[in-house]
């Protein structure tokens, strides 16, 4: 897909400023929804005893993921370089099928719509969706 325009980046950064303090909640909610709505994603967490949407492990991991997304916003000008280590992790160790990045992106968007119904306008949604797609691309950079 296309790269982020200056306007896209500005939109994402401005929106993220409003979202800052809520990232832990957003992460917990988003991962919980991923597991509830797309149960096949549980296959990546078979090493946890409790993989239910409300489990402590899911909540903790949601926070971790969202912190990384937040960090990626600061690296929005060069996601490929900024996410190099995470890309290697996902490519060689985690091996998450990239189709799942889209599913998680959708769940994140749903949470943002719930939490910020006025601010998550179609224009913001578009720019943020582009950002998440670029993030996913950078994450799968080292896959093959």
């Amino acid at each position, binding site marked *: 897909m296309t790269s982020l325009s200056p306007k896209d980046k500005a939109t994402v950064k401005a929106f993220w400023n409003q979202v800052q303090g809520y990232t832990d909640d957003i992460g917990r909610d988003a991962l*919980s929804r991923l597991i*509830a709505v797309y149960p096949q994603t549980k296959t990546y967490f078979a090493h946890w005893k409790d993989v239910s*949407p409300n489990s402590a492990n899911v909540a903790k991991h949601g926070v971790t993921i969202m912190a990384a997304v937040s960090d990626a916003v600061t690296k929005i000008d060069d996601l490929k370089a900024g996410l190099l280590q995470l890309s290697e992790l996902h490519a060689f160790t985690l091996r998450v099928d990239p189709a799942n990045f889209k599913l998680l992106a959708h769940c994140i968007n*749903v949470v943002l*719509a*719930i939490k910020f*119904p006025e601010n*998550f306008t*179609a224009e913001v*949604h578009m720019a943020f969706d582009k950002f998440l797609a670029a993030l996913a691309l950078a994450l799968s950079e080292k896959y093959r």
Partner: protein
Amino acid sequence: MVEWSESERSIISGIFSTLDYNDVGPKALCRCLIVYPWTLRYFGTFGNLYNAEAIKSNPNVAAHGVKVLHGLDRAVKNMDNIKATYAELSVLHSEKLHVDPDNFKLLADCLTITVAAKLGSAFTPQVQATWTKFLAVVVSALGRQYH
């Protein structure tokens, strides 16, 4: 055939009974056209769609959004037979409108986000799962008659 539990049926009919089709329909369609601009290809006769503002104030888009919601209403009222209920609509979208079925999923995602914004925390992960299942069945039925 698709199995629906009592809980799933009541979740779906419950959500639809709270929706204002005249509000949610246009919002969802606008969002789809703005977030996934390539979907504009199907609306060449709708007039000014040159930017987000134009799309949001376009009366043809609004009317069509309402139409889509009423179409979904038919699935809600025939949950045990969505495939048959949509057979004609599927032929229409394939033979006459020539809509790439991948686009159904894009509109479904935008509708999910619009409904999530409306319902807020009532749109729990479990409700979202049921809602997503319903839209997946709708999308599948709409693509069924393509050949």
